């Protein structure tokens, strides 16, 4: 079962700010769902390969030829904050 701390950690990983009430609600829901799922742990699968994509075909390769053009102005018209062609975010410290 998940704990309050687990959900806090998940919220941090997924960059969500949760109020205490929201966190408690999510915690309850997450545990409800997870208990629904726990029976699958008992199914014997050691010899079964995971199925990641249903069709099981292989990756096609693309020729190394430029196919995109510069559309910066168009795309940046959608951006919240732009200056001199750069996307702006609050200062990042390293």
């Amino acid at each position, binding site marked *: 079962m*998940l704990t309050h701390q*687990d*959900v806090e950690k*998940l*919220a941090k*990983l*997924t*960059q*969500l*700010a*949760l109020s205490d009430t*929201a966190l408690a609600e*999510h915690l*309850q*829901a*997450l545990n*409800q*769902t*997870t208990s*629904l*799922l726990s*029976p*699958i*742990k008992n*199914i014997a*699968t050691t010899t*079964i*390969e*995971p*199925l*990641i*994509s*249903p*069709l099981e*075909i292989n*990756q*096609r390769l*693309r020729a190394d030829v430029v196919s995109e053009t510069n*559309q910066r102005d*168009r*795309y940046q018209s*959608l*951006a*919240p*904050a732009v200056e001199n062609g750069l*996307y702006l*975010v*609050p*200062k*990042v410290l390293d």
Partner: protein
Amino acid sequence: MQHKTMAQLAQALTNKEFSARELTEYYLQRIKQHDPALNCFVTVTAEQALQQAEQADARRAAGESTPLLGIPLAHQDLFCTQEVRTSCGSKMLDNFVAPYNAQLIEQLNQAGAVSLGKLNMDEFSMGCSGQTSFYGACNNPWDNSRIVGGAASGSAAAVAAGLAAASTAMDSGGDIRLPAAFNGLTGLKPTYGRVSRWGMTAYASSFDQAGFLTRTAEDSALLLNVCAGFDERDSTSAQEAVPDYSSTLKQPLTGLRIGIARALFNGDLNSHIGEAVLASAEQLQQLGATLVDIELPHAEHAVAIATIIGTAEASTNMSRFDGVRFGYRCENPRDLADLYQRSRSEGLGELVQRRTLLGAYYLSAEQYQDYYVQAQRIRRLVKQDYMEAFKQVDLILSPTSADLPRAVNATVDANADFLTQRYTVAANLAGLPALSLPVGLLEQLPVGAQLIAPHFHEARLLNAAHQYQQATDWHTRTPAGF
């Protein structure tokens, strides 16, 4: 007129009973009249629609008469439409005017179809109710005290209520088929890889497939003819040849073997729905099919593994919505963490946040093997079940939904929406084409049955559904008042 099929409208246009422009004006008028009560549309693109209609008329005058020319469609609001808002039912993308078209949109535009607008949906395809949209719930035209179904809520309501001749949508676990069943429509989810995913906002990348809600299988075939096919921009796009799906609709069903997994008809299934589905099986027998009992031993695990894999993939697909390059950004972010956290928490709805947390949980280091990897292994077993079954049968028949749509104000627990997909989600796990068609009425509400075919055998699905629809009239029922 509002309940005519696409095929019928195409015929009428060919016969010059009206122009494409007149037809589009008619639908725009219906939208104006009825959408306030239904809330199907997030964006109505009236001007563009009329322009497209005029172009269609011009093309027809020049001698063209292809099936989709001038036909008014509407699109679920997760297909990117160039220069038109593409919101995915979310505040996060309320201001997102897509700079490009989804491949499907391109294909339909080129075929001369008219786009009436973008349809409401459960936010980022999360949920099966039609109630989680930032733009408010979409209402059920059959009974507004019940949910309309989701995630393709607006796509279903619009066609059922005659506000569009047909609609497009994405199915990630039943999101086309369930609302189709609830609303008396034919809902098709093609084989994974059959239709390009380019420009279609992902939920779970290995589940998602674009499909259609129509009145008939015949209409579905017309749309699939245009939209199926290889797209080099999608690595998961299949290179299978595209047959003419319309040409095989009328094939007799003699010798068609239809599998029924009796185990699925027990448990939580509403017995009346079970009866309606079995009655449709008898009808198919009368048309020449034989029924065969099959087993799908791992069917009971489909919901569990789809929940794990689906939320896992979806949670990472949500990470791009961060307030940096497009979409919602919170006001006056204090620092980078604040920018991310508030933009996402304010821009994404509760259910989206919940599934994001859930998916991250199953991918976390401690849970990864036990949940995610284990689920992917069982996924192979589920697929194998179907491959085995298809050695003995040509199609599989089951209910689409275990029950009628629940009441709008019903309180449900966290698992309700996952469980609603108990019959539909296996097709997404295995990548199989599946279709829901109307097979009865219960308490005056539509009941659907689901047909599943082997990979790339949509023609067989559409053929069986079409023949059924020639012999029955459930698909012609429409909600009162619309």
